[in-house]
């Protein structure tokens, strides 16, 4: 436990309620969010989006759009210096695959093919609507398991609809021998669980204002959740030295993972550099709902080997994470999911396969509880299924199998911070759930390996 330095005794600032410093400003509307920032001569950006889920782009015609009063300029893939990238390249993830603006093929409904810039937001909407897309529609795939069938339409440019983890077609965890243990189990209990794709639904939509400065730099006022991550990715996409960019943010009207994608900043910055004018690019609510990333809709299959006394001897999990058309943060999310896919229980034999699957859906990405929410949902429904089949009290089943400090996790780490048993005891007490003396006596340290 960290403590103040120089031997001073702890003060009482920590552990007490202090009013949030921004509370009043948020409530009375005086907080400045990035969308409130404005400058003289500001222009507005809107995207031209694919109306279909999968198509070859034969042509883009701006002639009607350019006649809209207030039209300033347009950008297509040819204008973006590094148009194909992957957001996690900063932590070494490959390959580059997402198009900032679609060049030859659109892979999901709503994928941007171009952006237009106009003097007013209304003119930008009108000009975007008047851009003519000539598309040749292609067969699309929307289901994670269908996407892995041999004859499925291929979404990616490398020819398979899955992400490759160091030579493996999925992220694996292997601990003990789960199939052998299942053979020896009294019962085998299976379940299939389906998450829904959900929207981050921030009060403040994703957006930014990019302002060219007299010294040749561009200042970007953004509601990103990660200032330098957005700055560095923007520099990579635009192939400009990072010191040419300054990102300012800090007060965000809800993120929930949706503002870790870097979507609006590169195009607004590029247009600001091209036009020499400040550019505002803010998503509409419709874009937030249907174009911005969703939570991945995991499909999770669980096969548990269980003894009649409720001991879980094996757990095999096959999970399909629906990345949609592009990786974004999903390859990372699959690894986090794999680490958590056997739950807070000590099971001696575990086998986990997490597939990062590409479909012609809106890309999914980071969202609150990334990879873990999905696992918790499936596992805790599965635990109840086991309890019902064995006619064991669900509290007893969980408390008996709950991980204890000193236990080895399936990914090889020794458990040190387990308090599941104590947390369950506290919940049972507040809800008036009666637990037997034996269950009450359990602790997270009762296997004796580690004491706090």
């Amino acid at each position: 436990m960290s403590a103040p330095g120089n031997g001073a005794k702890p003060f009482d600032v920590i552990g007490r309620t202090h009013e949030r410093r921004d509370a009043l400003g948020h409530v009375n509307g005086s907080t400045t969010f990035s969308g409130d920032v404005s400058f003289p001569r500001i222009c507005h950006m809107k995207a031209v989006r694919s109306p279909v889920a999968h198509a070859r782009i034969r042509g883009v015609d701006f002639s009607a759009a350019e006649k809209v009063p207030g039209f300033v300029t347009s950008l297509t893939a040819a204008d973006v210096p590094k148009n194909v990238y992957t957001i996690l390249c900063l932590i070494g993830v490959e390959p580059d695959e997402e198009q900032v603006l679609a060049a030859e093929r659109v892979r999901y409904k709503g994928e941007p093919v171009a952006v237009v810039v106009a003097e007013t937001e209304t003119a930008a909407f009108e000009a975007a609507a008047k851009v003519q897309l000539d598309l040749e529609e292609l067969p699309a795939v929307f289901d994670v398991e269908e996407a892995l069938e041999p004859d499925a339409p291929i979404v990616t440019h490398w020819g398979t609809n899955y992400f490759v983890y160091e030579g493996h077609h999925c992220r694996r965890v292997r601990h003990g021998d789960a199939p052998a243990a299942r053979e020896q189990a009294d019962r085998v209990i299976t379940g299939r669980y389906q998450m829904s794709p959900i929207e981050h639904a921030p009060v403040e939509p994703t957006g930014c204002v990019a302002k060219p400065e007299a010294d040749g730099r561009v200042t970007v006022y953004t509601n990103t959740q990660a200032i330098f991550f957005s700055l560095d990715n923007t520099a990579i996409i635009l192939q400009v030295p990072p010191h040419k960019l300054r990102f300012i943010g800090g007060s965000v009207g809800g993120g929930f993972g949706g503002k870790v994608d870097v979507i609006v900043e590169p195009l607004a910055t590029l247009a600001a550099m091209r036009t020499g004018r400040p550019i505002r690019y803010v998503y509409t609510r419709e874009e937030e709902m249907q174009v911005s990333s969703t939570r991945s809709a995991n499909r999770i299959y669980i096969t548990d080997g269980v003894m009649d006394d409720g001991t879980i001897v094996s757990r095999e999990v096959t999970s399909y994470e629906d990345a949609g058309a592009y990786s974004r943060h999903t390859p990372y999310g699959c690894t986090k999911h794999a680490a958590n896919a056997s739950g807070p229980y000590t099971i001696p034999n575990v086998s986990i396969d997490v597939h990062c699957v590409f479909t012609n859906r809106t890309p999914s990405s980071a969202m609150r509880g990334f990879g873990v929410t999905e696992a918790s949902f499936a596992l805790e429904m599965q635990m109840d299924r086991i309890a019902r089949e064995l006619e064991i009290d669900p509290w007893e089943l969980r408390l008996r199998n709950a991980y204890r400090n000193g236990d080895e996790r399936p990914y090889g780490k020794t458990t040190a911070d387990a308090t599941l048993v104590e947390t369950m005891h506290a919940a049972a007490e507040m809800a008036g759930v009666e637990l037997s003396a034996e269950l009450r006596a359990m602790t997270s340290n009762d296997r004796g390996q580690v004491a706090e």
Partner: protein
Amino acid sequence: MTLLRGRGMAAVNYPTGMNLGGDPSQALIHSTPTGAFMITLSSVDLGQGLRTVMAQIGAETLGVPLETVQVDTADSDTGPHCMGTFASRATHRVGNAIIAAANEAKEVLLEVAADELEAAPEDVETDGEGNIRVVGVPQRSIPIADVALAAHFKHGRSISGRGMYTKPKSEVDPETGAMDPDSTEAHACTIAEVEVDTETGHVRVLSLKSAYEVGRALNPALVEGQITGGTWMGMSHALYETTAPYYPETDHAPDDFSHYLMPGAAELPEIESTILEIPSANGPFGMKGVGEMTANSPIPAIANAVTDAIGVQITELPITPEKILRALEEAA
């Protein structure tokens, strides 16, 4: 019409920090000439109250009044690098960086104060009220404002500190999945009570009672805020939200809040919670990340309560009235 009642529970863990680590954050602190302290970050406040908690951590570590600590955040020209606000990492990572920065600044502060008080640096301490005093001799005391003035204009010392925190990146063994994914784990357990109308399929959540083990609640009201918001989000996820109501089909996609439903105030049950504090080894003051976890346990707890009520397990989210009516029809 029959109203069926059910109760369900779920128990979960939640990892703190970016999966596999490798996600550094930094903090800089300096004193103004009159003894206010500026914490400079590039971290982002998403509405959870990061600025307030970061000021608390700085004030606690420095031993100065909270109101004298300001937090400047999220300007890439002035704030040192932060990986970002996600993965329940900000308070853990940035908080640890602030403790390191504050300790470095405090060392200078105490050295200058000791000089002014004609005492040894190890014999002086901050009093938490804006002064530095000789240990055991409270009348030998000097206001921090005077120490800062002396540091600036007499001693030529910069009362400042740099802080950095990172968990070294863990690699994943591609064969076995061996890895070190997290810094610590928080825990939650939720008990849900529901009432299902078999005529309409409507689920009314009657109560959500949860225990949360958070390591240490650095600001209890802000933890409570996370809990209340997260519980609502979990309930919404379980019963209402989807961008593809007939997933994997793509039709009936909502594009605004009149079609993308969420529970309103009228739908909310009484939300009760209790907080356990079992300190982590590496979180600032023992904290664990709680932001994301609060939305997780309500989802399966509500799903399990619906199963308990209707006797059929619906395993596809969200559990809408349509799915309930179809499940009941099939079971009949």
